[in-house]
């Protein structure tokens, strides 16, 4: 046997020259550790400029679900009185998840909730990694802390009790909402001194972005913690307003247009790009299939989302935001000929010609295929791909004005407070709407609806105004405060079950 062993070893050595027990796994087309990319020479056709500092790896994660289907955007919109996905016969039933969302009957297996949770922690993981990598760079770390705080705000606002992890690879116990609120506030306050009081670089944050964020956080503090912070909200809003850096865009639709880069009103945006930064799919999500011909879209749309009749009718015809927000009425192709749905419902009075009517026959099971006005605030461009070029606005100047107006009214317990009225009228004036001389709480909530349609703010607005349980079209009233937050996704509870810090479900859910 010794001979055998010798022969075998010899053969092995001769053949593989020392590699005969080498099991190091070399990754041939990618890297297994972080590296510093060399600058490439000026890229062609740069349409905007995000800083080349490596932090985009974290900021880019904000795109996930912010303007696409079955994730954060969907759960902030379809659960409210401004957007709906009707079941169109065999289409869009999807196990009832969108009907559940509309009727406030969601449960912990809703896939959009699981996606929201997973994407949020993916973004946090990337931020944590870069915070560690950039330890010596205070400005970079501060930007990342604001970005991470924003993701935690999304989590805390939607799910209440979450894990707050600040080092990649570490775990933390699920904590109460008030603790996460305090964490976010502390992070923002700590980051502000390291950031400039100026307009942020594109897609990034400055001290003023953090102040705008604080204004929103304090405005909702009463709901999150039970302790109102109206004056703090006003102070944060004032920090933005008094800086003089931002102003209302004279053209409302320009804020959201395909080329909405660096609009004067934008405080913090999530840049999307049809080629390098996909994920905004509004045209696909909302348009009926033949509307492909109206915009010469490269792919067929999905005919899912529309707005509700009552919400659409809350806009005056004179209000410029109405035409800027919706696609309504008969639809033509690019040459001006009516577009047809050859599969039209024979019961539909419009026949084959497509007419986006505000009224919808029913939520389910046979919602008309062409009923409902469509979401058009983020304008489409001709021949666009499923991934749109528009950038999604998460903080803008009008919201800061409206936040200050609301905090002032609430602080003074007077919705017709002069300061508040003036701020609201600034916003209405830009839209071409008439001036308010007096205002009620309901007027203000409706005004926010008109201004911030399709901006993922309606859910938290309705909750803050106590209108979350109201009845609206095809949705009955309820008074269940447990519905103010979503359930912890069932899959996440299962995934964390074997960790040091298992997750427990929110009250009222199983």
């Amino acid at each position, binding site marked *: 046997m010794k001979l055998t062993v010798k022969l075998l070893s010899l053969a092995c050595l001769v053949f593989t020259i020392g590699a*005969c027990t080498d099991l190091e796994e070399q990754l041939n087309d990618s890297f297994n550790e972080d590296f510093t990319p060399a600058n490439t020479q000026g890229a062609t056709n740069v349409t905007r400029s995000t800083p*080349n500092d490596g932090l985009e*790896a974290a900021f880019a994660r904000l795109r996930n679900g912010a303007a696409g289907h079955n994730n954060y955007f969907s759960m902030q919109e379809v659960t409210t009185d401004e957007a709906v996905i009707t079941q169109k*016969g*065999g289409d869009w039933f999807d196990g009832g*998840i969108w009907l559940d969302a509309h009727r406030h009957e969601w449960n912990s297996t809703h896939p959009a909730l699981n996606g929201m949770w997973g994407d949020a922690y993916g973004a946090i993981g990337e931020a944590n990694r870069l915070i560690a990598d950039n330890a010596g760079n205070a400005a970079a770390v501060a930007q990342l802390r604001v970005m991470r705080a924003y993701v935690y705000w999304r989590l805390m606002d939607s799910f209440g009790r979450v894990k707050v992890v600040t080092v990649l690879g570490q775990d933390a116990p699920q904590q109460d909402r008030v603790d996460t609120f305090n964490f976010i506030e502390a992070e923002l306050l700590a980051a502000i001194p390291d950031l400039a009081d100026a307009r942020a670089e594109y897609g990034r944050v400055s001290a003023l972005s953090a102040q705008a964020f604080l204004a929103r956080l304090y405005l909702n503090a009463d709901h999150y913690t039970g302790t109102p912070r109206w004056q703090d909200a006003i102070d944060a809003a004032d920090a933005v307003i008094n800086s003089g850096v931002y102003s209302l865009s004279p053209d409302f639709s320009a804020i959201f247009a395909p080329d909405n880069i660096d609009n004067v009103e934008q405080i913090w945006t999530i840049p999307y790009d049809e080629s390098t930064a996909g994920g905004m799919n509004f045209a696909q999500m909302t348009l009926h*299939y033949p509307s492909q011909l109206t915009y010469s879209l490269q792919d067929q749309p999905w005919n899912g989302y529309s707005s509700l009749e009552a919400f659409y009718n809350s806009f005056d015809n004179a209000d410029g935001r109405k035409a800027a927000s919706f696609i309504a009425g008969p639809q033509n192709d690019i040459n001006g000929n009516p577009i047809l749905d*050859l599969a039209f419902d024979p019961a539909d009075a419009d026949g084959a010609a497509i007419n986006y009517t505000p009224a919808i026959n029913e939520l389910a099971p046979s919602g008309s295929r062409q009923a409902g006005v469509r979401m058009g605030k983020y304008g489409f461009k001709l021949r666009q791909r499923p991934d749109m070029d528009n950038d999604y606005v998460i903080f803008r100047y009008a919201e800061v004005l409206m936040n200050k107006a609301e905090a002032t009214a609430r602080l003074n317990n007077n919705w017709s407070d002069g300061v508040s009225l003036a701020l609201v009228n600034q916003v209405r004036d830009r839209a071409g709407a008439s001036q308010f001389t007096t205002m009620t709480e309901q007027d203000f909530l409706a005004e926010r609806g008109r201004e911030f349609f399709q901006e993922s703010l309606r859910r938290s607005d309705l909750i803050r105004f106590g209108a979350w349980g109201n009845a609206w079209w095809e949705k009955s009233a309820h008074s269940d405060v447990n519905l103010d937050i979503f359930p912890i996704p069932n899959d996440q509870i299962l995934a964390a079950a074997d960790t040091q810090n298992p997750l427990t479900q929110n009250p009222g859910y199983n």
Partner: protein
Amino acid sequence: MKKFLLILLVLAVGFQGALLAQTRTVTGTVTGGDDGLGIPRANILVKGTTRGTNTNLDGQFSIEVTADETLVFSFVGYVTQEVAVGNQTTINIVLQPDYAELGEVVVVGYGSQEKKEITSSVVAVDAKDFNQGNVNDAAGLLQGKVPGLQVFNKGGNPNNSGSFRLRGISSVGSNAQPLVVIDGVIGASLDNVDPNDIESINVLKDGSAAAIYGSRGSAGVILVTTKQGTRGGSSLQADYNGFVSAATVRQFQPVMDAATYVANGGNDLGSVTDWQDEITRTAISNVHNISVSGSSENTTFRVSTNFRNIQGILDKSGFDQINARANLNHFAVNDKLNISFNMALSQRNQNFSFNEAFRYASLFNPTAPIRNPNGSFFQAILFDNFNPVAILNQNINQGERQTLNFNTQLSYEFFPGFRVTANYAQQFGSQIQGRYFSRESLYVGLGRNGLAARQADENRFTLFETFASWDKELNNANLTLTAGYSWQESQNTGFGMEAGNFPTDDLGFNIIGASGNVLGRQGEVNIYSYETPEDRIIAGFLRFNLTIGNGIFVNGGVRREGSTRLGVDNQWGTFPFVGAGVDILEYADIAAFDVLKFRAGYGVTGSLPGASGQAQDLFAYNRDDSAAGGNVSRVRGGNPDLKWEEKAEINLGLDFGLLGSKLTGTLDVYSRDVNDFILNRQVDPAIFGFSNRFENAGKIQDRGIELALTYNNLLSGDLKWTPGIIASSNKTTLEEYIIDETSFANLGSPGQNGTNMIRVAVGEEIGQIWGPQFVGVSDTGEPIFADLNGDGTVNADPASILNDDSDSQQLGTGIPTVNIGWTNQLSYGNWDLNLFFRASLGHSLVNTFRAFYEPLDPGAINSFNRTVTDLSLTDLTVAQFSSYYVEKADFIRLDNATIGYNFDMSGNDFIRNIRVYGTVQDAFVLTNYQGVDPDPVGDDGGNVLAPGIDRRNNYFDDRTYTFGLTIGF
């Protein structure tokens, strides 16, 4: 030919020298002891020489010998006999049948054993037992022939090879396909072996047999032996094999015809079109195989060439292939040195066509015309529904594939009983694909003004193995030791490009360079290049085989194996195996039995994750919108603790022969634990930054029983009938899992996302189709579901099927209770008839066509044509998944019926034999299943935990008629 034979004869005379001086001719007949008929093609060899001959079709032979020589008569399935020539001039031999074929040599890992020594579950299938007809891959040869081996190949797509599954689910997240070994080359591609060149296939089913191959054998091993030249056989022979076949659609998807469609509220567009008929055809295929084999004293060779021109029933689909194979064996230094060289090359031009056309043909409005009056294709903008004829005619989907492999094996006997073998093999595959979607194609292409894609992929596999074996006769025992080393490396690399916006459709995908899209702008040019991580397996192994007396067989050993795919601290694993067998009749006389052997084996093998690189983090560079470049992001959280998935299997078996060995059979039972199975599972993203990573996540257990029975020649007289039956049953239980229960297999779009149809739970069987119980239709056309838990409310919410208050239950199982193959070999004179029936019982399928398109939703009738079956309820208008769409899919089918005739060529010097045959594949299927094919579905897009979902874009099933001709020269 004659001249060639003459030259060989002269050469032979030269070699044999003086011995030939006193030769004379001996003639005779070889007959079988079972039926008394002549045995054609029996082998006759002069002992100790390489001279020999074969009998003719009547069993007659003639050979030149000297008086002191001995003739050896042999034939597969019969006991070999030796006869000293002496004074005889006529030698008539009766060969006794060896029903159990216990003398047969079976190829096992790194060596071969006599069948009687085998202690594990090994099934050998010879060429004569293969499925005949239009069979284009090795999987098709074996379907239904090996108990416990399932071949999944739904539909008649010629560009799809069947996939194997041995003994149920052997692995969850890693490769569940058995290892293929071709002529000793592990991991070789079955794509490069023409079925005509296969001599035999051995299937190693249990762990103790497969363990010598280590991780790659953990799902079982399929050993393919190709035909070789026979040493000492007739010096040169040529064979021709060919057939022509015609395939038609066996079963169309049942949908409404134009009149029914209009009557049900569909818009009448004025035409009548049978879309399914329009996209399919009678597919004509031709196959020709020519092989030549021969030998000289020290060298044997065989070369073959195969031409395949195969059409699929889907218009335009099919391939053209040429395959060549050469096998060469040379013996030197008094047979101590053996050099063998095998090489094979395939070149295949493929037209994939577009399988989606099947689905659209079942959905498109039957009153729509194919073309508009102006000649353009009719189109309507509907969701996910396109004119299927337009798809096939406007677009191109083609590929070209080359596979080359060679191996060189050197083996040297250093001293009697001790032999060292070294084997070096490489396999290269390359594939170039091209797709073009025309400027007019609404399906894809219109929005892009034409879209072209090209991609090239290459793979390479290198194997070096060396092993030594040592045979030692001991006192009343025989010991064989084998030790070896194995080094395997694979690599995949490729690149591709996709671009749109072209000035013309006329050049197809070759116009890609003329794209109007600009790199870096619009995102319309997609370019990629990849290379897989280094991927190596290194192993050393040791095995002993001990035979004690004539009746006790023991073997065992260990393999130490390492892989690059695992976490650095867990790369090496040790896998032992042991087996024992007893020929009981050697030690006890049991009157009823002629053969009785008991076997037991235990083996542990490891499995690897399905992809390499999973133990490591991955970072990628993303170009962003900054002027100068981009950023680096972490795109995968690796699992540095990833370790071997381990499979431990116990196999108990019994081989028996009764009634004078006319009834023979094999019974095996097994139990297999798959520990630490590897799964890409959902993890807590708060810790890892990612929602999924590969982990060792649980344990499954398989248990099964397999039976094979053959009754040799059931009738007496000229008509002979040999029926055989195999049956297997398998059960897989989830023993441990990270969570107690979960669900899989989303039904999908349109309208039924969030609808998981499969449940798995710890402690329960795999394969549960799960959902609400359908009881009827409401006045409004909605389905009514049963209140299963009796709480007074019906919760049929698809998203909450696992909740306590859900009214859901098991609706069926995706895994058959029993799979049966029933062979019948009949012969009468020169005629033979083979009838092969296949059945699976006890499984259900989710008929997804019905689940989406059967309810008569008045609002959506115009979006899709409707499926109509015996189960249709006209008043049901709302589609929601339930028991209503889960159908029992028990079936029995006449898989293969072949009738053949062998011409009597005994008086012909040139032609050894001529055989003509006709085959019908899939002649009929008896089933209540309403879909097109009741065969079980083993996985759902690769998820083996979710069997039983019959998805919508399966290629239709075909029925094939073949006429074939075989000539031996």
